[in-house]
Structure formats: structure tokens, C-alpha cells
């Protein structure tokens, strides 16, 4: 899977999570997920992990932290690492 394709899928997941309040194409690559950016809260963070695992067919680490989900690019990189070598943290 190419990086751009992965980024686009991540944005689609994020757009679904926020109830389509923001379209995938309106989400910048460097958009922060929590706080001032997309405004995800902790519970949506948990949902994000579950949806990423479902959408990409991966298993993320049990101890994944906020740093690894800080921006859209960070999430795409996390997914890429996981796809390359199994569960990552």
C-alpha cells in the first residue's frame, strides 16, 4: 500500500469518527487529532484504534500512546510500521 493511499484511508476513518463533520479531503496531513485539531476525545481515540485495526487488518500494540496518534501522518506511519512488521508500539 502506498503512503498516499494509506493517508487517505486514515482520513476516511477519521471523518467517519467525527460523524462526517469534516470531509476526508478537508483534513490536512499534519492535522492534530486531539484537542484543537479534529477534537477527538479519549473515547474516540479508543474507537480510532479499533477502526484502524479493522480497516487495515492489523493489530496495534496494547500500550499504544497518544504520541503515536498525534497527527494524521503519525497515524499513517504507525499503520505502515505495523503492516511492515506486525504489532508495533
Amino acid at each position, binding site marked *: 500500500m502506498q503512503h498516499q493511499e494509506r493517508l487517505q484511508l486514515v482520513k476516511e476513518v477519521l471523518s467517519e469518527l467525527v460523524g462526517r463533520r469534516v470531509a476526508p479531503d478537508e483534513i490536512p496531513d499534519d492535522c492534530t487529532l486531539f484537542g484543537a485539531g479534529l477534537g477527538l476525545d479519549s473515547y474516540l481515540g479508543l474507537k480510532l484504534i*479499533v477502526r484502524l485495526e479493522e480497516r487495515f487488518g492489523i493489530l496495534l500494540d496494547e500500550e499504544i500512546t497518544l504520541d503515536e496518534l498525534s497527527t494524521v501522518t503519525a497515524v499513517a506511519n504507525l499503520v505502515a510500521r505495523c503492516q511492515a512488521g506486525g504489532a508495533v508500539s
Partner: protein
Amino acid sequence: MREVQLRPYEESDILPRYRLFQDRPVQENILPLNFQLTEEELLHRDRRIIADGQRQRLIFVVETNRGTPIGYIWAYPIHWRSRWTEVALAIAPQYRLGYGALALVKMVEFLFDELDLHTVVHQIYEGNTLMQQDQQIRHMATLVQRAEVWSGGRYRSSFLWSQTRAQFRWDRASLLGEVADDAAPGAPAAGERGAE
């Protein structure tokens, strides 16, 4: 299933918990009494609580499945005669990803199933940034205490609601419906609830 574990609070956990109480978002979302104590006062108080068998203030350490401590959850005060309590929790900043909601489910299950309590009261302070958005909380609340506490440089109202065992079963299925594989079949999807 992504989940957390709860283990009994011990003396070696007192100072890490004190340090977590110094985190500003935590201070803005728990009773000020918890962080107004000095390190020595908290040590003294919590040693007494542990020695007393935690009969009135039950504290657990929240851990990942690999045993990494990521926060604390506690029930206080426990009204044994009328069988109700209030629950609060604090999760380390880097783990604010819903682990608190999972800890809350596990804690309330324990309170109902093992301690046979009848009601659990939840309380959220205005401006809470550590769990679901304000509007959802306000919708859930059945009691509002105006300007109840002073924290983070302003007065905050608190929003309270209670859960009976039956309500908890319903809420648990709703909360975990999308994040676990053992939610009740046919569980309602609407009205996501949870706390962190």
C-alpha cells in the same frame, strides 16, 4: 479485546499517584481535595487507607495487559448500609485514549458483582477535557451543582448521574459495542457513554 487490568493499590503506588495528581488536566477534573494535599499528607492518608483495608476508600491501579501502570481508579465514599458509592479516576497523559473508560467498566462491574453495591454515582466537572464532550455529559446528568469547585483558575459546576446495576448493563453494552468483542448481543448503539 483491548482491555485494562485493575490491581490493589499498595504503598509503593502512593507517590506515583501523587505525581499524577500534579497534572493540570487531572486537577481540573477531580475533587480539589485530592491534589491540595502535600506529598506527606497524601502518604499519611493513603497509608492509613491501605492499613484500614480500604473499607471506605477503595483504590485500584489501572494497568495494561502487560502490567504497565497507566492510572488509578477509586470509589469513595462507600456507603455500605445504603450500598452506593462514587467513582473517580485519573489516567496518565500519554494513555488518554479511552483506557479510562475501560477501567471504569471494569471497576463498576466489580462494585456491582463482587461488592453487591446497588448504585454508582458519576460526577463530571464542567470543562472536562478528559472524557466525552461536554454536551453528552450535560445530556446524561440528572443533577447539576453550580460552581461547586474552584480549580484551574475558575469555578466549575459539576454534573452528576447515577447507574443502577440494570442501567450499567445497558450502558456497558453501548460503550463497549464498538471496542470489544463481548458486548451483549443486540445491544443499543445509541447514547455512547463512558468516563475518563
